């Protein structure tokens, strides 16, 4: 189930799942969240705006219950992955806090001068060890658009890194809770494999 709280590129994710034959619904009701066997949490734009919109939805509590109590696998995409964290330098809203840590802003002076913010490009992604999400993906490359990056408190929650003038966390994972900073739905065959891994291996 792709969570629809009014934010994010739901159509792109849905299109890719359809392309790889994974049955999906775009949902915005409590019942749909209750029925979900797997959850994709998209997000785009401002962290605070995304959190506010999600908190406004009437399935917000159900979502927590599904993920924390029933341990239903969840995959956060882009700002959706940042929302899994506790706080963000982009705003004051609390994140979901499902993974310990925060979201930080790329600082201009820590990047080479020709590295503009936002980081908006394809980048090589380096999975840490054998990550089920990246299984079968040879030399993974994904499309990124972000000015902020996830920074988990526990290094063990980093599932992959990428480089943008400096290394940063490209994805996080803590068991059934996974988040990717990039856009798999816009990363053709790499993304198809990643979504298919999420559907089959979690």
């Amino acid at each position: 189930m792709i969570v629809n709280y009014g934010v994010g590129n739901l159509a792109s994710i849905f299109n890719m799942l359809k392309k790889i034959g994974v049955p999906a619904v775009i949902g915005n009701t409590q019942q749909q969240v209750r029925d979900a066997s797997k959850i994709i949490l998209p997000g785009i734009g401002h962290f605070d705006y995304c959190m506010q919109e999600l908190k406004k939805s009437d399935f917000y509590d159900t979502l927590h219950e599904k993920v924390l109590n029933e341990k239903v696998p969840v995959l956060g995409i882009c700002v959706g992955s940042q929302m899994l964290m506790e706080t963000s330098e982009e705003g004051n809203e609390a994140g979901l806090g499902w993974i310990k840590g925060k979201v930080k802003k790329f600082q201009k002076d820590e990047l080479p001068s020709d590295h503009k913010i936002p980081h908006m490009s394809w980048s090589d992604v380096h999975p840490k060890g054998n990550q089920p999400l990246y299984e079968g993906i040879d030399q993974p490359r994904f499309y990124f658009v972000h000015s902020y990056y996830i920074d988990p408190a526990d290094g063990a929650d980093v599932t992959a890194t990428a480089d943008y003038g400096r290394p940063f966390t490209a994805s996080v994972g803590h068991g059934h809770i996974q988040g990717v900073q990039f856009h798999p739905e816009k990363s053709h065959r790499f993304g198809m494999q990643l979504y298919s891994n999420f559907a089959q291996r979690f």
Partner: protein
Amino acid sequence: MLLIKGDGLVKSVQFKNHKYVGDPINAVKIFNDKEVDELAILDISASAKGKGPDIKKISEIASEAFMPVSYGGGITTLDEAKTVLANGIEKVVLNKSAHERPELITQIANAFGAQSVVVSIDVKKTMWGKYKVYIENGTKNSGLDPVEFAKQCEKNGAGEILLNSIERDGTYKGYDLDLLKMVGNAVNIPIVACGGAGSLEDFRAAVKEGKASAVSAGSMFVFQRPHNAVLISYPTQKQLVEQIYSQV
């Protein structure tokens, strides 16, 4: 870079002599298979006819595009931008609207982030050799200096500039490196070079010498020279790494 005119895909030379190159959906499918990094789709008939973006067509194209896609053509309101972005498009491209209603850049940037709004700037040299921004598909001189206009767009919240040289369009003569440098030095947002690509060497030069953040090409990817027969092609990742990424 794909241009739509009416229902078909076309390619121009110096913004004129549009040649039909095929069906948009079919082309997008081929570019998918070739693992293209990004697509920009501009409907050059939308603004001219005064109609808004054709959402049905855009959504159809987006549903086949598993790479980042920008769309431009006929967007004049925040609502239209919102609908385009909700239909599987990552970035909206403004051209005429960036002149007529610069506040739209700001509105889109505030609502969806600066990364979702691209301003395309079409530039041509006047008879006196001065670069000027042209509008209405390159037919009308706005009188504006591209450097000043680009700075203004950045200030208004644009996340990216698609810098198009009208004279180089469809000529395979290479990008206008002077123009790229001039505008690139004046703004902090990424500049995408457009107009004139004929080879991977041109890409390299635009990035290395022109300091462009990215490059785009139209004719080079849809035509086969010397006779400009329609044949969609795209370099492999290996070629790109060896001939560009490792050289810049």
